[in-house]
């Protein structure tokens, strides 16, 4: 990732945080609040499969935890793991079509939302797993995937500059 991409990715992350605080609470559908930070981190992982960093998802997850009311570290942990695995999977199975990244986006957002529910339950939230799945996990994952779908072309257009680096060069950020 060159400097220009880093700056663009940073600006995108800042916008995701701002959208989460300012816009997300007002576009909730049936109690499902979209997670812009999760969607952005996952889209970056899919589009920058070879050079996706871990610090940005960690910071985004930590901010999500600190601004929201969940246990601090839960979203950070899941975002770090999800982006790491997603970038590896994306590098392996990306066949150049749009379907594959979108399918991975949907699956990973579902996995993150469900695991987040599991972590909340482990931290003392007294709800049944079925309730967590039906009332939060599934609707939120679908909403996140839609947000990711909207973000995908924007990230490709403004953040990713294909061909500016040698393929297969991993970076930290």
């Amino acid at each position, binding site marked *: 990732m060159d400097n220009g991409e880093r700056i663009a990715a940073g600006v995108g992350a800042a916008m995701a945080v701002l959208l989460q*605080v*300012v816009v*997300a609470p007002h576009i909730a559908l049936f109690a499902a609040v979209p997670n812009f930070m999760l969607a952005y981190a996952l889209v970056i992982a899919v589009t920058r499969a070879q050079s996706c960093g871990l610090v940005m998802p960690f910071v985004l997850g930590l901010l999500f935890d600190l601004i929201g009311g969940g246990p601090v570290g839960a979203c950070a942990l899941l975002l770090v793991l999800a982006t790491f695995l997603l970038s590896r999977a994306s590098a392996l199975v990306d066949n150049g079509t749009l379907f594959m990244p979108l399918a991975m986006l949907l699956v990973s957002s579902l996995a993150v939302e469900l695991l987040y529910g599991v972590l909340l339950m482990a*931290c003392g*939230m007294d709800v049944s797993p079925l309730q967590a799945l039906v*009332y939060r996990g599934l609707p939120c994952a679908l909403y996140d995937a839609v947000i990711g779908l909207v973000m995908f072309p924007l990230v490709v257009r403004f953040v990713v500059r294909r061909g500016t680096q040698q393929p297969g060069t991993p970076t*930290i950020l």
Partner: protein
Amino acid sequence: MALNFQDRGSASATRVLLVVLVVVSIACMTVYAREGAGGPLHAVQSAFAGAAAPFKAAGTAVGAAGEGAAEAMADATASEETLTALRERNAELTELVTQAEEYRLEAERLSGLLELKSKYQVDGVSGRVIGRSTDAWNQRVTIDVGTSDGVEPGLTVMGPAGVVGQVVSASPGSAEVRLLTDPQSGAAAVVQSSRAEGVVRGSLAGLLYLENVDADVTLSVGDVVLTSGLGGSYTRGLLIGTIVRVDGNANDGTRRVIVSPNEQATSFEEVIVVKSAAADSASGSSGGGSGDAGSGSGGSASSSSSSAGSAGSAAGNGGGGQ
């Protein structure tokens, strides 16, 4: 070859970073779960919530603008002829009527709050809702009064129709209120007619459940549910809601009781943070603990009745929850 070596180096650095970040995240979660509500991570979270409050307030304005845009879109799709004929004549009047209606509704809400305040002889501070939860798993609102107005964690919050939640964190200019409908909420409650005690808990479905009620107590639809004040979590004697559904009969261990919540998170804009109420001061109880349903320390029920004791302790043992 050199490139491969560099790749391997970067790849291993990434793996090391992954391990470090995972360990840090898990350590944060562990500390957060074990520390009390006054712990350092809770304090940092509270500070961040305070810092985010102005942005949330801006979001409320954005939300209102969005509603206006939606209305404008609806107007734009109406017949152009009709719109042209009506637009000029009605533009000013519409604006005035809208403004007057807004003032009327606000006055209605505020008068409802004042009525409630005088009915329960509540000593408290009123505030406006300026933000709502940024995530789906917590049902909270941000209000525009904080520690500089005497608001502190543990105080009960009332809407125009009764109790809506409890302050969980406060900064000088704002406070976070966990709603009763949050799955991590738990309020010690009493059914007004039968004096049966229990705990009202929220759920992800947005419903309130009355739990831990003695099996031999008969409950009926329409029974009024009040805060009991046990455990010191919520101020005593305030309206929570009414029973709207009872699945099962008395002596049925699996009986499920649903209480209608006073307000939905999206429906109230003004609240009163209760510092004390007449019923509360009469009993000598005060809102000080946290009503988390999660585990933690602090709060105790001082009742000779076993069910009352368990209800109070279950609702008032918070402090260490989210």
